[in-house]
């Protein structure tokens, strides 16, 4: 089941830019009128901690992060990760709309895997690294 919320063209353009190495991460949000998913911010030089800190405390976001890590014995790896950030502190209306719009959006982006986050520990570097190593 889905919400029918659309995806603005710009989200796909920005995603291609990220894949080409122009950004480290992108935050996406649903427009005020709940019609479409739009780009919120794009960030180039940053750290994972700054990314986590940029996820709003009481509001949902979608995000894609260009995750780089060392796989023991196999060297440098890179994975694009999709995040559905829907914190427990968000109001029920925004939770409902983001959760029901997630799958339609994620399918349009080619990412390695998805992280569903409802609190900071679920999107921590360790959690994501563990998942990245496991799914390769």
């Amino acid at each position, binding site marked *: 089941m889905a919400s029918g919320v659309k995806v603005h063209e710009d989200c796909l353009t920005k995603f291609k830019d990220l894949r080409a190495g122009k950004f480290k991460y992108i935050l996406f949000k649903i427009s005020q009128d709940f019609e479409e998913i739009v780009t919120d911010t794009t960030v180039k030089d940053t750290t994972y901690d700054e990314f986590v800190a940029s996820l709003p405390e009481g509001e949902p976001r979608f995000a894609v992060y260009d995750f780089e890590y060392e796989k023991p014995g196999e060297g440098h790896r890179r994975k694009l990760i999709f995040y559905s950030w829907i914190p427990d502190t968000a109001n029920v209306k925004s939770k409902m709309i983001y*959760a*029901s719009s997630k799958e339609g959006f994620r399918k349009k982006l080619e990412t390695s895997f998805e992280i569903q986050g409802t609190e900071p520990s679920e999107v921590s570097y360790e959690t994501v690294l563990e998942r990245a190593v496991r799914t390769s």
Partner: protein
Amino acid sequence: MSTFYGDEVSAIVLDIGSNWTRAGYAGEDTPKLVFPTSYGFLPEENVENDGDIVMGENSNANLGESEGDPYYPKRKKRPKKRRGSYIIGDAAVMAWRPSMEIKNPLVDGTIRDWDALEEIWDYIFWEDQLDIDPKEHPLFVTEAAWNTREIREKLTEIAFEKYQTLAFYIAKNPVLSAFAAGRPTAIVLDCGASSTSCVPVVDGYVLKKGIHKQPIAGDFLSEYLLQQIQSNPQISVIPHYLISKKFIVDADKPSNPILRDRPNTTESYNKFMQMRVMHEFKESVCQVFETTYDELVISARPMKTFEFPDGYNTSFGPLRFNAPEILFSPQKFLPQSSLEGIDVSSLYGVHEMICNSVGSCDIDSQPHLLNNIILTGGTTLLPGFTDRVNYELSMMRPGSKIKIHAPGNTIERKCSSWLGGSILASLGTFHQLWISRKEYDDYGKSIVEKKCE
């Protein structure tokens, strides 16, 4: 942007649960109407005046039925008549009537009694309730995860053929609950009145093979409590309708109330009213023990007093904990004799149901599901319920990260699927998801399987 459903036309959202029916306008925070799904039925010979219903406080429902009544220009005459009378609504069902049977249109969370379903829809749309014309509104209904294709198609047909709704959609309860909790992927444990179910939802779709359910839930606890309490010869659970006057008495003293004469009361009505008392008992007295059942610790816990409708009052000790324990260790706490047609050895504790449900999903998603467990349904509001589920799961799955989402807000816990439906159905973008009148005309009722996945 299309204004297929303009702002003034809000969708109607219906959630018919085994115990409560919730109905209201999409976009609102709470349902306008919440009333028992159980209804009263008067056989034909007890209905007076050519089908006019014998009713008390609701008799003004007939007022607007005359065509062209200037005060009620919009109200439509309720299409009639089935054999006998249906009595619907909280106060109406509770009010005693001779020969009135209490029935429930659902079996195992799905609709069995279609006449009653239509009566309930009639009641909601017309009869002084929402007072709307279903022709002018899209209709959004919720369903159990295990609802059958036949039932979904029949609902679609009734919506378009009989009520001629503008559009129709049917959505699965656990998906709505998961979305309302902000989790497209989750395990939804629903412990309500008639059944306990555990349903994995992955990316907004029910994983059918992971559905686990059993008929042990709130009603069963009430039934068990009634038996246990009545086994004490001191106590008889006399429901409110029989009591004319009660007296304040000391604890454990006979209350000798003045009773009403209620001839021709049906067994089902009396039981319905007794269950109401037991429901109140559960809410005020019962508690789930936080860790593994321990008789010694429990017998040292403070007792709680309950006053029955007749004024008799006494304190309850271990029973407070023993009844809810059925939900966690049915094998140990359920007397086989209390179950007709159910084999106790086939029953599981709610935590075991969660583990079984998680276990039937692919191994990679299991840690994620254990980290996203949603509790919904009135029975999960028993104090200690969430702590106990958490405790049992960490014993069964040591090392796994377990996170239980149980909204403290009672509306969100009891009405999560209605609320989810209300939000979704109010979105402008949702218009493309509705089954439109035209789609129904073009493809017929089977369209529901395609559009409402």
